[in-house]
């Protein structure tokens, strides 16, 4: 589902969190369901996701946060734009609920000095876009701010 400018999916798998975590962090596993890659589960590690031929170039990515087997946060640069992909896992009666949040908006999100995260600018671009997509809000003053056909170019 689309929540503002974030794409959010939650799904339950009848497998323990450690198993699901492995599927998210082992390169051979990722290749099987996502796309070819050279992923390593280390904060700061760069990796590439090869979405060819639907995209001209592999995505340049970076691991931002690793907290096994609970949370994995990565940056994917798609068509030159940085986007944030976050996986969260929680145990659920022998299975795992996996939550994926893909912030589809190119973001300037950066680590703050205090270890938190935030956008650099006073007006959140999300608010601008939400206003643009909601006709009723259009006149509101903004200061009140592995291998997937999804990226097939229209060209």
């Amino acid at each position, binding site marked *: *589902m*689309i929540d503002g*400018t974030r*794409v959010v*999916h939650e*799904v339950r*798998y*009848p*497998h323990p969190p450690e*198993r*699901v975590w492995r*599927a998210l962090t082992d390169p051979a*596993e990722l290749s*099987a*369901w*996502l796309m070819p890659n050279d992923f390593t589960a280390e904060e700061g590690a760069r990796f590439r996701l090869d979405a060819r031929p639907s995209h001209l170039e592999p995505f340049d990515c970076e691991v931002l946060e690793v907290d096994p087997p609970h949370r994995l946060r990565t940056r994917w640069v798609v*068509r*030159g*734009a940085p986007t944030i992909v976050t996986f969260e896992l929680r145990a659920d009666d022998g299975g795992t609920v*996996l939550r*994926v949040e*893909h912030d*589809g*908006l*190119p973001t*300037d999100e950066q680590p703050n000095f205090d270890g938190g995260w935030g956008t650099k*600018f*006073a*007006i959140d*671009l999300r*608010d*601008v*876009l939400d*206003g*643009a*997509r909601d006709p009723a809000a*259009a006149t509101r*003053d*903004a*200061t009140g*701010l*592995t291998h*997937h*056909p*999804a*990226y097939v170019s229209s*060209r």
Partner: protein
Amino acid sequence: MPAAGAPLVDDVFGVLAHPVRRQLLERLAAAGEHRVTDLAGPVTVSRSAVSQHLRLMRSIGVVSERRAGRERYYRLERERLGEVESWLMRIDRFWERGLRRLGEHLDTHP
């Protein structure tokens, strides 16, 4: 003029991809019209770079320009920004498919 090797910008997502353009959009989001001087003030690139970005944003249609004498005034065209929706839908479908494939992978390789 895009730098050599830079992604071709042909839609709203491409406009959003550049951090200076995001800053400009946020300035433009304040209601009304803005002059280049007002837009260029808070950003760290040259005024001519700002003009280039505005020219590109006009070509995509997220910004419109009005000339009054020698002054040019820029306004955000919000409807065009609404196209980001189709981009998000593509991401949505991508994950729907991917998570289904993840489930199948887990079930066949427990």
